[in-house]
């Protein structure tokens, strides 16, 4: 038995990354960032607001949270809709209680189907980011580039028509991209994306269509990861985020601005028995000095003013 000789050839074994999307950089030695007003830890809250067709597609892959049983999967279709009609409004109230402006990553289908939700989001001062068309709108290598370009354009056009302004930010379903995605997002005029989790502060990614800022939305600290995947309680989620905040507040005194991103899902954290833990968490974060809720777009804006575009 033997492997093909090419398996022991390392063509990209070289200084730096094994791709050209971004250069290596050390969070602790790069030029520090500073948030406006002396804020040390910015807390961007990103809510994924999703619509799952009861007819799922698997091209290129089936999104997490999608239909699971034989057709018709009432249980998952309706449980996701519960998040949209009920859970999301609990979240909106929780944000209002602590005067937080958040970013809602919205499937375009939500704007088409439920325009009043979009009006409620905008009226509360929250930011809308684009989050594909619906939960069949997944992206990965293998998708035709023109289809991907079209999917991005449809998501942006629909949200712009519904809100009157074109979203500046993008979140891919499951953060999944093809090789083309960063370039297509830059080409579509988007200012930032939320997909890459390799850092704890925003950084520029370079593409053939120009730069696009990545604002890392820590997937490990998401309600999906902690509660749904790792099966921990809402109280444990609250504890973990508070521990993270304590650590980052301390780190910020020595190394400059930090980010504590919270990625929330209405049908996960918006349940009656979980929402209280989130409300407690938000109150705790609000009471910490120099810790402030900022939208992802605001973080991108403040970062872009400090980090030279490549």
């Amino acid at each position, binding site marked *: 038995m033997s492997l093909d000789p090419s398996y022991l050839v390392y063509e990209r074994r070289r*200084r730096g990354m094994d791709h050209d999307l971004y250069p290596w950089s050390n969070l602790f030695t790069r030029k520090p960032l500073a948030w406006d007003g002396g804020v040390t830890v910015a807390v961007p809250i990103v809510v994924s607001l999703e619509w799952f067709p009861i007819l799922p597609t698997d091209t290129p892959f089936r999104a997490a949270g999608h239909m699971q049983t034989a057709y018709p999967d009432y249980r998952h279709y309706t449980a996701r809709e519960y998040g949209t009609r009920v859970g999301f409004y609990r979240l909106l109230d929780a944000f209002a209680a602590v005067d937080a402006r958040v970013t809602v990553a919205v499937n375009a289908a939500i704007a088409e189907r439920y325009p009043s939700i979009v009006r409620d989001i905008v009226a509360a001062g929250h930011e809308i980011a684009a989050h594909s068309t619906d939960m069949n709108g997944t992206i990965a290598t293998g998708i035709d580039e023109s289809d991907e370009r079209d999917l991005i354009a449809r998501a942006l056009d629909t949200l712009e028509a519904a809100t009157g302004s074109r979203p500046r930010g993008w979140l891919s379903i499951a953060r999944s991209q093809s090789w083309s995605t960063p370039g297509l997002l830059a080409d579509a005029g988007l200012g930032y994306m939320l997909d890459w989790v390799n850092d704890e502060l925003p950084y520029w990614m370079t593409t053939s269509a120009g730069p696009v800022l990545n604002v890392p939305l820590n997937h490990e600290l998401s309600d999906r990861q902690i509660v749904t995947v*790792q099966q*921990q309680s809402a109280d444990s989620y609250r504890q973990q985020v508070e521990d993270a905040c304590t650590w980052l507040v301390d780190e910020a005194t020595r190394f400059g601005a930090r980010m504590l991103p919270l990625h929330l899902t209405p049908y996960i954290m918006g349940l009656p028995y979980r929402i209280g833990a989130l409300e407690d968490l938000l109150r705790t974060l609000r009471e910490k000095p120099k810790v402030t809720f900022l939208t992802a777009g605001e973080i991108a804006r403040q970062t872009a003013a400090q980090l030279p575009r490549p």
Partner: protein
Amino acid sequence: MREGEADPGLYDFRPYRNRTPIRWPGGKSVAVWVSPNLEFYEIDPPANPHRKSWAKPHPDVVGYGHRDHANRVGHWRMADVMTRHGFPGSVSLSVALCQHVPEVVEDANVRGWEFFSHGIYNTRYSYGMDEAQERAIIEDSIRTVREATGQTIRGWLAPALTHTPRTLDLIAEYGLTYTCDLYHDDQPAPVHVKSNRLISMPYSLEVNDHYGFFVYNMSPRDYADALIRQYDRLAAEGETSGTVMCIPLHSYLIGQPHRIGAFEEVLRHIAADGRAWITRSGDIADHFLRHDYDAVAADAARVAENAR
């Protein structure tokens, strides 16, 4: 190993009682070594016919990005905490990291950490290699680490834990003295190899942070509690005969902001306890080879004789 046999014949059976005592330096009861995996994963690796690398089509943005967090963020946070509490690292190294991010390797070297090989990349697997190919990655490992750090590797943890039947014989032939790939004991033990002396160094999958967080789904505080219980038990049992506790880490996991604080409490607990020989894997191996190897081998012969 005895290839093709039901019992691979890796080591002798010795029950965990009436063993020849192992004594660690300074009368310590448990040798504690922390093993950061300093890795590089390729974004677009070639396919190995025996194991898939990424779960998704390339680029697997979350899979790759999560691991890339280690070299940008996690390592520095984790290493700082380890140094603060007096714990050196024994590094399981993807040796190509010496080319890609020499800053991380140099930082570990300056901190007095030891390096052993974890293959070229954690996305290149040994399954299916012929002997010449396997010799090539061992020789590459020895050469690359020596050029980057001045150190000569003494240990091996197979890349992504992928082995061939000849791996242990080969690393022993090249003069390596310990393997971290065998999980049969809480003490070092001789491994049967064709030449030279090779020992099994207790590593741990069970308290590996990857297992803690993604197999057992522990919260950060629960994982810290597991480590403290593991330590307390091994320190108590080591009064009879010295034990080994390894804490295998991946900085993209333990170096996350919600986990590092709880982990720091573990290091504080162990450092304050007084029973721990806080050291490096190679130092444990050297001590065992010098003081205990022959006695433990004789012990094994005695057990085998009594079993007749």
